[in-house]
Structures are given as structure tokens and as C-alpha cells.
């Protein structure tokens, strides 16, 4: 299934997308796809897609914004509209928060919230550590693959297979291993969280490495830049925005995965690692909805705070410093 998908969908798209590379010097290796070459030579394909392009043109013709010219009066009116919309959202948000707090406070006290905060911090530490480990492993490999299109082509089906592989299948084996060797679940259940999401880091780093323009690579080669200097001054800044995307996606996925990965059972064996994920899982199983609500609210707050305080500033830094335009 994956092989079919790779040959008929993925490779042609990659070969087609090569035309969008912003480069001045032609690279000698370009992605090739026999399916893409075949598509381009057929006459059937444009006919097949004609209805879609027709609909597209129709929509374009009907779009009201395209024909009207904005006047200044309209501008001030839309500003008022924006303000009204923001106020509405603000009120809705406050209302939602009030409902949640009210619901939770019916049965729980502030001490419970404090406990949950502590558990959330624990899970956060786990996520950070796992992202760091995954980065250390996959960034070098991703850069190596990204710089060699031949290898990227060869390893694509493998990577897709690994990414599609359901990580849950491995859970029982991990449980058995932990029980057998009497390992500490707090530490050893953690890798389960990153199992399915580490591929985001890999894929994004591969994309980032292949996006480093050929003339920059030639300049680096010309001046003999190697080793740690090459990583520090060329590869890492080059892939930085892509890496941030990958790490952000992976960490988000890991937070989600913590719900199933921190409290794992297999048969009669039950393993429990202390953290926010196991808290939510236990509360769900027990049907304790206020606790579930509290746990999920806490997780949302943490993820959003991460986003604002870590990933956003990194993006702005990348925008300011790492782009030429």
C-alpha cells in the first residue's frame, strides 16, 4: 500500500515540486519519478482535470472581493468590524473559562489544581528531554539524507513506512521488558511518547537540508569548511526554521501521546508513570469528569504557553536573522 502511494503520489509530487526551488545554479541531481514523466506525456490528464480547473475559474469569477475596490470609508468600517469581532471573542473566551472553572470547582479544590500543575511540569520535563534526544539522533541523519537526493529518494518509502507504523503495537513489548527487568516506569515509559512523533523532526530536517541552496553549499566546499564549523555556520542555521517546525509538531504530538503512554497496561500488568498524561488517563477510566476537565485545561495552557514563549520567538529570530530576503 505504502509502495503504491510512494510511486504514484509522493514521488511525482516531489519531482513536480522541484520546479519551485528558488535557486540560481542548477543542481546536478534532481528528483526523478517515472510516474511523473508518464503523467506529463499523457493527454488524458488535462482532460481529466478540466472540470476542476473549470470550477476554479468559476469561483474566481464569482469572488466579490476581486471586483470591488476598497475605499477609505470601507477601511474604517472594517476596523470597527475587527474591534467588534475581537470583543466578541474576548467575551466568549471569558465565559468559557468561567464555565470550566465553575464546573471544576464544584468537586475539586485549589490543592488539586496545584498537584496537577506539578504533574504537568513533570510531563513537560519529559517532553523536553525526549525532543532533545530525538534531535540529537535525527538531525545529523536528516541533514545527511537531505544533502544527498539519491539517498533521500531511496529512503523515502522506508521513512513513510516507519511513520505510518502504529506505535501502539510496540507498547506491550515495552511493558513486558520493563516488568521483566524491573525498570523504573517513570523513565522507561517515556520513549513511548516520542515513538510516533520523532519522524516529524526527521522529515522537516530532511526538507530543510535539501532547501539549502546549491551556491551556499559550493561556497562552503570551496573554502574548505568542515566539521564543527560547518555545522555551526552552515548546516544548523540553514535548517533552523525547518527544525523548529519539526520540533514544534513533535512536541505537540508528544503531549498528546503522553495520555496513552504514561499509563500503560498489558494483560494484568499495569504500569504507571507520574505525569499529566497518566492523570488524565486515570480520570477518564474512573469517569471523573471534573478531573478530566482540569487535566485537559492544564495541558492546553501548557502547550499554548510553550508555543508563545518558545516556538514563536524562535520563528521571529529565524525570520529576522536567517533569511536573505
Amino acid at each position: 500500500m505504502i509502495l503504491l502511494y510512494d510511486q504514484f503520489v509522493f514521488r511525482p509530487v516531489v519531482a513536480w515540486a522541484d520546479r519551485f526551488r528558488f535557486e540560481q545554479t542548477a543542481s546536478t541531481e534532481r528528483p526523478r519519478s517515472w510516474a511523473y514523466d508518464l503523467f506529463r506525456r499523457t493527454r488524458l490528464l488535462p482532460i481529466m482535470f478540466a472540470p476542476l480547473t473549470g470550477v476554479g475559474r468559476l469561483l474566481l469569477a464569482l469572488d466579490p472581493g476581486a471586483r470591488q475596490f476598497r475605499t477609505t470609508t470601507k477601511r474604517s468600517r472594517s476596523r470597527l468590524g475587527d474591534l467588534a469581532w475581537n470583543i466578541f471573542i474576548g467575551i466568549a473566551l471569558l465565559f468559557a473559562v468561567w464555565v470550566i472553572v465553575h464546573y471544576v470547582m464544584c468537586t475539586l479544590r485549589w490543592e488539586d489544581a496545584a498537584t496537577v500543575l506539578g504533574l504537568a511540569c513533570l510531563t513537560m520535563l519529559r517532553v523536553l528531554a525526549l525532543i532533545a534526544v530525538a534531535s540529537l539522533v535525527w538531525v545529523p541523519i536528516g541533514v545527511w539524507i537531505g544533502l544527498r537526493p539519491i539517498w533521500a529518494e531511496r529512503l523515502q518509502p522506508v521513512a513513510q513506512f516507519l511513520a505510518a507504523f502504529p506505535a501502539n503495537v510496540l507498547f506491550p513489548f515495552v511493558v513486558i521488558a520493563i516488568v521483566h527487568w524491573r525498570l523504573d516506569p517513570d523513565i522507561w515509559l517515556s520513549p513511548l511518547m516520542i515513538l510516533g512523533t520523532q519522524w516529524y523532526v526527521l522529515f522537516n530536517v530532511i526538507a530543510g537540508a535539501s532547501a539549502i541552496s546549491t551556491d551556499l553549499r559550493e561556497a562552503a566546499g570551496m573554502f574548505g569548511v568542515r566539521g564543527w564549523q560547518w555545522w555551526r555556520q552552515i548546516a544548523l542555521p540553514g535548517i533552523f526554521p525547518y527544525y523548529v517546525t519539526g520540533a514544534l509538531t513533535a512536541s505537540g504530538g508528544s503531549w498528546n501521546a503522553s495520555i496513552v503512554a504514561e499509563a500503560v497496561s498489558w494483560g494484568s500488568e499495569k504500569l504507571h508513570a507520574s505525569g499529566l498524561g497518566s492523570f488524565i488517563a486515570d480520570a477518564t477510566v474512573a469517569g471523573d469528569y471534573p478531573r478530566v476537565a482540569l487535566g485537559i485545561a492544564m495541558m492546553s495552557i501548557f502547550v499554548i504557553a510553550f508555543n508563545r514563549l518558545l516556538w514563536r520567538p524562535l520563528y521571529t529570530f529565524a525570520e529576522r536573522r536567517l533569511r536573505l530576503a
Partner: protein
Amino acid sequence: MATIIETRPIVQVSDVRHFYGKGHGQMLVLDDVDLTLNENEIVGLLGRSGSGKSTLMRSIAGLIRPSEGEVRFVPDETGRAPSVSMVFQTFALFPWLTVLQNVELGLEAQKVPADTRRARALAAIDLIGLDGFENAYPKELSGGMRQRVGLARAIVVDPSLLLMDEPFSALDVLTAETLRTDLLDLWSEGRMQIKSILLVTHNIEEAVLMCDRILVFSSNPGRVAAEIKVDLPQPRDRLDPAFRALVDSIYARMTERAPSVPAHEGLFPGTGIAMVLPVVSTNALAGLIEEVHGAPFEGRASMADLADQLQLEVDELFPMAEALQLMRFAELTGSDIALAPAARRYAEADDGRSRSVDCRLL
């Protein structure tokens, strides 16, 4: 001032052939190229786009290994192998490093200690005239300034051979001219440690202005079609008759057909159904015919003057001229283009007839 200047060879390229692509679709890009680069000279590789000159330069730079043949670096008296440095057409500056860090790049790679590195980089930046911009980022600089940084980066490592891959083609005319004169000043005053420069260009006037020796490349596949020595004293004047004569003769050399194609008497070369027309717009062809027909050419123009008048590069003018020749609207003799009677009729007719003549031939 009659000093004998040493001409020891630095690089020897022998029988280089290079293929692009793999399998049965591969193209021969370079065919049996032989050339020698000596000390104390600026050599120009002149050719149209796609003639393989950039590939040859990258083979000399060590970025590409040619499929066949050898690029040999001749060690100097002390036995050291020559070092090579390159200036890129697109500047190739790292956007996340300041000007100073960009220039220090090669020195850091050679493990030069930090303070020496800094001193040398500052001296190089001063030399190319960007004093004060050490902490600026490339995105804050104009095109000309970026290329100066590229040049500083290349010369700070004290290479024996400086390779320049169409260094001024991405700049506007005035900035390019300023950079050219600055580079020639640095070269003639001996303020750079460079022994030799290899300049790849598709601008004939730039080649004649700067180079001591010009290698004209033919395309498909790329090989050295001619080697021309330029004996004019520096600084060279574009309006000098000797300069213009040389430019004309190079135009003629570049429009020459390959000797393997026999020239029939009375027939334009290159006729036949199998001949592929260059891809040129009919509007451009019509414009060219009208231009040559009107004053001051009156039906016959030298290619160099035409290029000047129309502000065209070699790459743009030659395909149009060849298309006209293939369609029997013009004849290329030497470095001149002469309109055939059919073209004169076209130019003198009004719009209606022009269109019909167009359609008849295409």
C-alpha cells in the same frame, strides 16, 4: 618599463570531457578541453550560456570531478600546490553571518587563530572599500556591496588562482563597471596576493576590457573554439579603434559555424527540414528586422553595434540572428548581419502584409 614577466603555469587542464546526466539521456557538456593557466595573467572564458564554461570552472575549483581527463595543479618553486578561491555569480553570502564573519569563513576553515583572522579580514574589507560595514548583514547591503564582500572573502585566504564565475552579470551596468575598474586597479597595483585570475563571462566587451587572454567556447558540446591574446595596454578604452576591432572579430568568431558543416555555394548554411529553429519570439524577430532596416544601419549592421544599440547581450542577439538566417531573412557574414530582400519587403510593408509574410514562413 620593459620587465620580463614570469609566465609559469599554475593549472594544466588536459583532455577534459564531462557528461551531464546518466544513462542514454546523458549530454556531453565538455569535449576534449585543453587549457593552461599561467602566472600574472587574467584569462577569460567567453561563451554563450550552456557552453560548459561554468562546468569547466567548477572542475578547476574541485567542486566537480570531470568524467574524463585531468586537472593538474603545478607546484611553485617552493613546492607548494596552488590554492584556489572563487567568486560566485549570485554572491553566495551566508545570510546569517555578518560581513566580517563571512569574510573570515575561509580563514576559520584553515584554523587561523582568532586575532590574526580578524586583522586579515578587516584588511581585506578595507581593501575592497567596505570599511565600516563589518557588522552589517548581507540583507542590508546592495548587490554591488555583496559582491565586494564575496571578493574580500575570496582574496583574504591568499589564493594563487582566483576563479570568477560571471561575477558582474547579476549587477546593474554602472555598479558592474565600478567593480571592474576597482578589481583591475587592485590587480595592476599588485595589492592582492593572487597570481592569476580566471574569469568566466558571456559579455564580450567585459572580456576584452579585463583579460590578457580570451578562450572562446563553442556550445553543444563545449570546446575551446579559439584562443585570442589581447595585447592592448591597460587601462583599456572601449572607444579605442583597436578595442572595437577586437570586439568585432570576436563576434565574428562566435557566430562562425562549426567547420564540420559544409557551406554550399549560393545556399544559406543550415538549411533543411531537420534544422531546429532557436526559440525566439516573432515579435523580437520583427523588431530586429526593423531595427537593422532603419537608420543608421540601412540594412547592414555589425553585430557589436547592433548589440550596443539594442542593449542586448550576446546570448539574446545570436539566437535571433541565427533564426533570421535560417528563415532566409538575413545573412551573417563575418561579424555583420545583412538583410535579405524578403526582409526588406517585410520592413517596408504595412501591418497587414507583414503578418501574412510571417505566417507564410512559420
